[in-house]
């Protein structure tokens, strides 16, 4: 009993008289400001933290574009809240990288990287000195992200648009719910993994230190970071809507989930090549969003037909197949038109198709899309008439094959997204000039 009372007393003591304190040690401000442009070269770098920190001689390193270290030995000020590093040799018209690492009073060892420009815009943090480019891991993460989005959106479209007024067997309805929830969680988790991978390419921290890497410059000062934050929160709402729709058997709650998911796809368009390249326009952003919407519905829809409707609801096969065939014609037209326009915008010369890596992957993607479209056309022109005539052809395995090819298209799309397109020569990009 005494021991129990002593334990309770300890807990009560923990509530008494809190000292002034803040959160985990993080960088709250800097001079120059992260990702900013300054007019004159600074003579020192000042980093302010939300708690006292201790430092080593390598706590702050300022790097020129060629990797030369321009900073001297850092010191702390203001009771350890501020770290100051003298710098010299900065010149106008260049971007610089600041890499920092401190030890917080909470024992954590946060680290980060940011850039600033003298007389020019700051380079993106992903292009900080010492950063590695994207790797195959980024491609796989992006592929999984696209796939999860397709598996979230496709089944919602099939359920809400194609078999909306049909009685749906219990097991199929259950799978629709389950797939929607799992896909939304996959979008979130794969999105987080992809974001951390992208940031880690720039942070260049050992794996043991990555847990305390500062992701704020990437999350708040880059388009892909802001898109990541909005999409993570938005898909969290989508997951909540889908779960509540399942609990209360409310089909109508899946509409806002679908609309929100489609709207959130714009995050990818507003942070990708079609928004960040010099000749990007609102038209290229809109075309990219349409391309993504059509591709997500098409890939997810084919997968829904192959893996849900065909094995679980024989009575709905004909309706779903015919309904999706009509929708697919529109989707393919949108994908091909938007994709062709985007290719013209991204590749100023025809020879870029075979002379650049981006162009070669675009050709590969077009080839795989061609296979998928041929497969789809076979279904459209050979299977659809038989279904309309009342036959019941077993095209389940063929639908699985089309779905596999469709996911292969997503892989090439993921690689293309991570590849840099050829540089734009403003004089040669006719499309860019006319659409700007």
């Amino acid at each position, binding site marked *: 009993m005494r021991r129990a009372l002593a334990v309770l007393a*300890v*807990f009560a003591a923990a509530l008494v008289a809190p000292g002034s304190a803040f959160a985990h040690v993080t960088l709250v401000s800097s001079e120059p400001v992260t990702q900013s442009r300054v007019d004159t070269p600074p003579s020192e770098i000042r980093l302010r933290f939300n708690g006292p920190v201790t430092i080593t001689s390598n706590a702050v390193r300022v790097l020129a574009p060629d990797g030369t270290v321009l900073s001297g030995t850092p010191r702390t000020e203001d009771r350890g809240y501020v770290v100051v590093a003298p710098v010299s040799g900065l010149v106008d018209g260049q971007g610089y990288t600041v890499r920092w690492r401190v030890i917080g009073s909470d024992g954590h060892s946060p680290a980060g990287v940011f850039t600033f420009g003298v007389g020019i815009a700051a380079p993106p943090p992903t292009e900080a000195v010492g950063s590695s480019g994207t790797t195959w891991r980024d491609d796989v993460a992006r592929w999984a992200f696209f796939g999860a989005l397709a598996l979230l959106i496709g089944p919602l479209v099939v359920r809400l648009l194609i078999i909306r007024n049909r009685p749906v067997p219990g097991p199929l309805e259950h799978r629709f719910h389950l797939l929607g929830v799992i896909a939304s969680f996959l979008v979130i988790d794969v999105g987080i993994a992809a974001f951390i991978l992208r940031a880690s390419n720039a942070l260049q921290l050992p794996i043991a230190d990555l847990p305390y890497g500062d992701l704020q410059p990437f999350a708040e000062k880059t388009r892909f970071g802001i898109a990541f*934050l909005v999409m993570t929160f938005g898909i969290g709402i989508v997951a909540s809507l889908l779960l*509540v729709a399942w609990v209360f058997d409310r089909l109508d709650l899946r509409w806002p989930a679908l609309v929100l998911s489609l709207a959130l796809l714009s995050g990818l368009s507003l942070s990708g090549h079609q928004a960040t390249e010099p000749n990007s326009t609102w038209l290229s952003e809109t075309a990219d969003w349409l391309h993504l919407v059509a591709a997500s519905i098409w890939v997810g829809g084919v997968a829904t037909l192959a893996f849900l409707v065909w094995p679980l609801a024989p009575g709905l096969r004909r309706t779903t197949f015919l309904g999706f065939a009509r929708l697919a014609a529109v989707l393919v037209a949108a994908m091909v038109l938007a994709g062709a326009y985007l290719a013209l915008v991204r590749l100023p010369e025809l020879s870029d198709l075979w002379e650049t890596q981006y162009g070669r992957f675009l050709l590969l993607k077009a080839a795989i899309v061609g296979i998928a479209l041929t497969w789809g056309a076979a279904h459209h022109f050979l299977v659809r008439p038989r279904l309309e005539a009342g036959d019941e052809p077993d095209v389940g395995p063929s639908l699985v094959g089309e779905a596999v090819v469709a996911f292969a298209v997503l892989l090439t799309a993921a690689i293309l997204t991570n590849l840099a397109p050829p540089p734009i020569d403003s004089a040669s990009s006719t499309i860019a000039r006319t659409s700007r």
Partner: protein
Amino acid sequence: MIPRAEDAHWLAAAVALFLGLVLIAELIVGREVFRRRAWRAYLFPAAVVVASVGLWVIVVFSTFSTMHLLAHAVWAQAALVAGAVELALVRGKLTSPRWSLVPGVALFVSGFAFLVHEPNPWLYSRSAFLHHAIGWMLVIVALFPLGEALRPRQLVWRTGFALTFVLLAVFLFADRDAAPIFGRFGLGGP
């Protein structure tokens, strides 16, 4: 842009206290009386689902470190799944008592995330102390839903489950990352 962690933790503490008081109220008057008005049965699980949406907001503000981003995302997902399963149980959508294990798994995963994202020993600081205390508490009390699934008539499981939220609120209200462990009575601290 980032709110102070203390503020976020105190807000979470208020939500945990509300959840704990709802469960304690149900324990005191009995499930039958408490659920005479149907909406009361939905109060706890609905609050958990709404709290999970709040956790997504915290996720967005947690980019100051990789570990905190991951940990908050884990808590948001665990809360959402556990809340939805509880809602489904109340509504009768799920009937098997085995579904009662889901909150246990959510508690275990949440506790594990607490322990993993604290690299310092217990007595390093108050923050470290509370992270360990909350983490181990959640891992251990994950057994309560298991007990309820196996022996649903024993009140001890539900009592322990309810008190877990109250204790969690106490811990979160006490959270000061750089304060001495025991306030002015002071052991440890940076």
